[in-house]
């Protein structure tokens, strides 16, 4: 990992919500230039919080980074506004879609190009997004609130791409998407990564997919990184295999045959 430039360096951050709820207890991670890094972990592990800390969206949730540092291309970014970050090319796709309910799909996408000024470029980007997600094109004049869950998810991803980012923070991009679209989304990631050298940090529950496309992964558990390693390494790790990939101990098990509730082995605690 050291052979490439580190673009994003998160160093031992602690995050507290509402002045009392300590959620991240010293998380460190690095994202190399043009890398795809996956952030894995169960519900409530703190993935979303980590991404919010990076993109500076914590304030609106009444959270704050109390310790540690976050650097983007060598520059401390804890005190920048989210808009400044977008101007530097870092854009986040928020969990839970967050489309602008009253705007149409197309207007939603266009707001994504707020930081762009070149008309031609904007039009080209729009075309690109419609190409990625043809479904959006057919729904372009509907108000976002009245589209299906998956359509909204596509809209949120497409909107972020409209700003021509060089680093994208994706929070559960596959959620609510049909299987081929999930595939499509990850292909887009790959595509952008290879052709346009976009760096990705992806928080994802679909471990299978994530580890298939990522180069490197971090696994979080109750506010800490408990394991990290190259994607191949994680893919072959027994624990990961059992708990995240469902292929522990040989064949994939049918969901029907899981006989008892699992008590997950905790790395910590």
């Amino acid at each position, binding site marked *: 990992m050291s052979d490439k430039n580190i673009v994003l360096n998160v160093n031992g951050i602690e995050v507290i919500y509402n002045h*009392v709820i*300590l959620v991240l207890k010293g998380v460190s991670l690095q994202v190399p230039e043009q890398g795809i890094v996956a952030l894995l972990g169960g519900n409530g592990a703190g993935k979303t919080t980590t991404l919010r800390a990076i993109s500076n969206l914590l304030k609106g949730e*009444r959270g704050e980074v109390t310790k540690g540092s976050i650097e983007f291309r060598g520059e401390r970014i804890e005190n920048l506004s989210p808009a400044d970050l977008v101007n530097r090319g870092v854009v986040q796709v928020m969990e839970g879609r967050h489309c602008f309910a009253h705007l149409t799909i197309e207007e939603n996408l266009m707001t994504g190009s707020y930081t762009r000024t070149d008309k031609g470029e904007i039009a080209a980007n729009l075309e690109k997004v419609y190409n990625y997600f043809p479904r959006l094109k057919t729904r372009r004049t509907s108000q976002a609130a009245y589209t299906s869950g998956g359509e909204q998810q596509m809209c949120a991803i497409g909107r972020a791409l409209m700003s021509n980012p060089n680093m994208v923070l994706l929070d559960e991009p596959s959620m609510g998407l049909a299987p081929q679209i999930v595939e499509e989304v990850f292909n887009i990631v790959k595509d952008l990564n290879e052709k346009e050298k976009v760096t990705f940090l992806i928080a994802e529950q679909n471990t299978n997919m994530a580890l298939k496309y990522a180069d490197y992964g971090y696994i979080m558990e109750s506010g800490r990184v408990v394991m990290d390693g190259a994607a191949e390494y994680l893919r072959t790790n027994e624990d990961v295999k059992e708990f995240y990939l469902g292929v522990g101990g040989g064949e994939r098990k049918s969901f029907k045959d899981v006989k008892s509730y699992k008590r997950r082995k905790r790395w910590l605690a």
Partner: protein
Amino acid sequence: MFYRENGQFKTSYNADQQIFPIAQDRWGVLLLVALAFIAVPFVADEYMYRAILIPFLILSLAALGVNILVGYCGQISLGSGAFMAVGAYAAYNFFVRVEGLPLIVSLLMGGVFATLVGIFFGIPSLRVKGLYLAVATLAAQFFCDWAFLRIKWFTNDSASGTASVSDLSVFGLPVQTPLQKYLFCLSFLVVFGLLAKNLVRSAIGREWMAIRDMDVAASVIGIRPMYAKLSAFAVSSFIVGVAGALWAFVHLGSWEPAAFSVDRSFQLLFMVILGGMGSIMGSFFGAAFIVILPIAINLVLPLLGSMVGIEVSTAALTHAEQIIFGALIVWFLIVEPHGLAKLWSVAKQKLRLWPFPH
């Protein structure tokens, strides 16, 4: 280290369902009520009673009512002043027209009429929401302002449209001195506070909150929006109506519709927002903030001024009071957008962790 729930194990759900599940809270509140009934009478002077405590108690009661509607059921209303007025004038008409009707019955009848009017003006809430509803309830406010000013019957045909009562007594006990009035209002507040707390932690309270937070989902799990909203309007306007009657009978003695003007509606709404929407305790905090703080600033500023040798003129004083009051509102909101009650609970939570930072 002292404020802990450690070692307090709940052996039944009933125990966990108490109003204040933490023993310290329970004792704290009991102590507070005891203080209010027993200790305050030893220390308060007439000014405290008449200018601060009684208005505070009555407006707390009104804010409590408004909180049920706005904070719990999410129906923003700016008609509370009108419901207070209905309570006051209805109680007044019962009081002067029905010979020998006990005071408490009159006051409660005020509440009953406010309930009816409240339900009537609550009907638009079935269709109109949010700020739109808030402005729609202003229709109730202005209509009532007008009606009590214009229809002489309501004021027992007084020429100027003012109503007045005197010689109040309950069960043969006079309610005339400030202390008596204070205790009278306090009793009302405690009883209504308890009932309201019971309501909001029961099924009906959950229905209100469900409607507030997401009405479509609420109806999917079988909550009838109409019943929930109108019952919130009813309960809220009942309490507000009684508070209005108390305000008129006990605090003012003689009043005109302006005592329940739209400013009052705004004032009550602000108490609720600032105190904490959806918190019974918050209503008291909010009322305290909005009733007491300006007075306190007004009292303290001249002292401060004289300490640094500036004589503050009357107008400058009032303006400074406004500036400081406004700034404090903003400051508190920034510290805790969910109101003083939330601030209080965060403080308690910190206390629970103390002396460890997290």
